[in-house]
């Protein structure tokens, strides 16, 4: 078990390196290939009054004259050992994990990420609660009453749900519920939970519902399919034959077996969401990691992009790891492999 965890953790670290190297390459290699020079890169980060000397200074300060592997090495070193940052009248030590300083605001990236995380976390957790509850219960009821009007309606709505992009349902939601009816908060009005829980709830209600609608639809379909499959298995028939009450058969045997594979999917979905619900945050202008990523890309702010991609990838990896460990608890067979 311990070696299993260690092996998985090592694999995760390798994965993070691959992701960071790929992001680095996109930002430095692709522009180089089409003729960008250190100076043209640096011009993005100076004001309109900048002279060529200023551009040179900044290109130098940002390390653009160094070969790309040196720049990458410096970035990696910062994560493990921290880095020194020259702010003019002195230098500041940026402690590990130092994801560098924004090219635009010249603020360290790591505190930014920690700052944005609660927003995405609030969005993801709230939506997950809703979608797991509604998705699974709809799926179970549908499976138990297969072919009924209820089942067919639920599955119809679910199919529509997985076919609607969030940037359409979100916009319509804003138009109808926020603008026309005034029931929910308009886009972009996020308040931290610690400041005012009521405002926090009000601002996130519509994003939660919109995001959860999509996932509920998926989970309802998956739960239903899983339930139907397990209810047809021999051991369920055996349980019924033993005379166990129908309720106990369905819940203890059927649901449990049907939910186990759902756990994997939930782990991945939730991990991906924590790394930034890009579209939802964009539609509702929520200042989470996803919007941070899009803004950083728009501004060519490489340290921010690297930081947020790392964080996102780390969440997926960790979520998968947790799921795998949970699996080992739920399903003893996994431990052997």
């Amino acid at each position: 078990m311990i070696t299993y965890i260690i092996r998985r953790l090592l694999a995760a670290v390798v994965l993070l390196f691959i992701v960071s190297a790929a992001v680095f390459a996109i930002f430095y290699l692709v522009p180089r290939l089409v003729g960008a020079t250190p100076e043209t890169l640096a011009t993005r980060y100076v004001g309109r009054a900048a002279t060529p000397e200023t551009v040179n200074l900044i290109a130098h300060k940002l390390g653009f004259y160094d070969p790309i592997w040196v720049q990458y090495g410096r970035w990696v070193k910062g994560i493990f050992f921290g880095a020194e940052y020259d702010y003019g009248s002195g230098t500041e030590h940026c402690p590990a994990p130092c994801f560098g300083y924004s090219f635009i605001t010249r603020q360290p990236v790591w505190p930014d990420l920690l700052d944005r995380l609660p927003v995405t976390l609030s969005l993801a957790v709230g939506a997950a609660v809703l979608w797991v509850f509604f998705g699974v219960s709809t799926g179970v009821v549908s499976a138990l009453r297969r072919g009924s009007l209820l089942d067919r309606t639920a599955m119809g709505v679910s199919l529509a749900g997985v076919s609607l992009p969030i940037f359409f349902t979100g916009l319509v939601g804003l138009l109808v519920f926020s603008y026309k009816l005034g029931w929910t908060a308009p886009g972009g009005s996020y308040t931290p939970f610690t400041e005012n829980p009521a405002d926090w709830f009000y601002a996130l209600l519509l994003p939660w519902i919109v995001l959860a609608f999509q996932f509920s639809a998926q989970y309802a379909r998956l739960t239903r399919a899983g339930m139907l499959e397990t209810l047809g298995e021999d051991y369920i028939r055996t349980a019924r034959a033993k005379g166990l009450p129908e309720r106990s058969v369905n819940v203890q045997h059927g649901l449990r077996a049907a939910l186990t594979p759902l756990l994997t999917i939930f782990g991945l979905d939730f991990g991906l969401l924590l790394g930034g619900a890009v579209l939802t945050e964009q539609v509702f202008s929520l200042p989470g990691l996803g919007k941070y990523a899009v803004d950083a890309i728009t501004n060519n702010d490489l340290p921010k992009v690297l930081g947020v991609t790392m964080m996102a990838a780390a969440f997926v990896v960790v979520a998968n790891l947790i799921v795998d460990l949970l699996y080992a608890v739920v399903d003893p067979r996994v431990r052997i492999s």
Partner: protein
Amino acid sequence: MVVGPGTVSDQAPVAPDPAEGSVPGKAIEGRSLGRIAWTRLKRDKVAMAGGYVVVFLILVAVFAPLIVKFLGDPPNEFHQNLIDVNTLAPKGGTGISGDHLFGVEPQNGRDIFSRVVYGARISLLIAFLATGLSVVIGATLGVVAGFFGGWVDALISRAMDVFLAFPLLVFSIALAGVIPDTAFGLSGDALRIAMLIFIIGFFSWPYIGRIVRGQTLSLREREFVDAARSLGARGPYIIFKELLPNLVAPILIYATLLIPTNILFEAALSFLGVGVRPPTASWGGMLSDAARFYTIWHFMFFPGMAIFITVLAFNLFGDGLRDALDPKGRR
């Protein structure tokens, strides 16, 4: 249980479980698998309806110029005489009329009907070709991994893990953002479309790859493969003559179910501003424009419904196809 491609990070529609390990079709009395499946599919009215809509949409995309000639105006043509210059909104709210079936855009006054029709071209073209690309990559690597096993399998499986853990949407925008205007001998829309096909196709292959690998793993151990092997057949022969024919059905099913995912992926990229360049119409791009005018309902409604109907039709048809080709999953 197979997880969807995870392409559109926070809203990837996950295809229903593929019922892994089932081998489709036990040919009875000379009726081919295809014929049986077709009979089943024909009986599934919902799937057929989806199929008809898909065919209709393809026709719309192909004959877009003709349709627009009779029912609309050129998609990029301005009609600013229909716009209230002070509010930028179409005069009378939407501008819906006999000439403009879906109304006109605020500010520019372009015909929304024509833009939705032309948007179908971009959407379907990219979705089909990207799916083709992921099928090619996914099937090849999946078969190779499943058939050869060992370190080859380990390597390819890890690669698939990497792709699944990637913050794909962020990564795709970053990549699309740095691609210049002219590259690889292409420019303008052609380059953007090629780039979108590459990004979407390249990031979706593990979805097909995993299924093919799983199927190959189970097929490899089956009697007919053993028989072929004992008769002296070699790797390539087994792959092409014994494995691939049995893989056609699952590949077809999941390719069909991947198309709607890719449509959503393309729309998401366009919505985030890295799709085809204006003024070329795309549904995601139209929604992105509509977001600036979020109080004007018809601007977001028609492109949004176009995405919805298209994705729904493909999902319905794909579900039906799976049920038809995979009797075990039908019940």
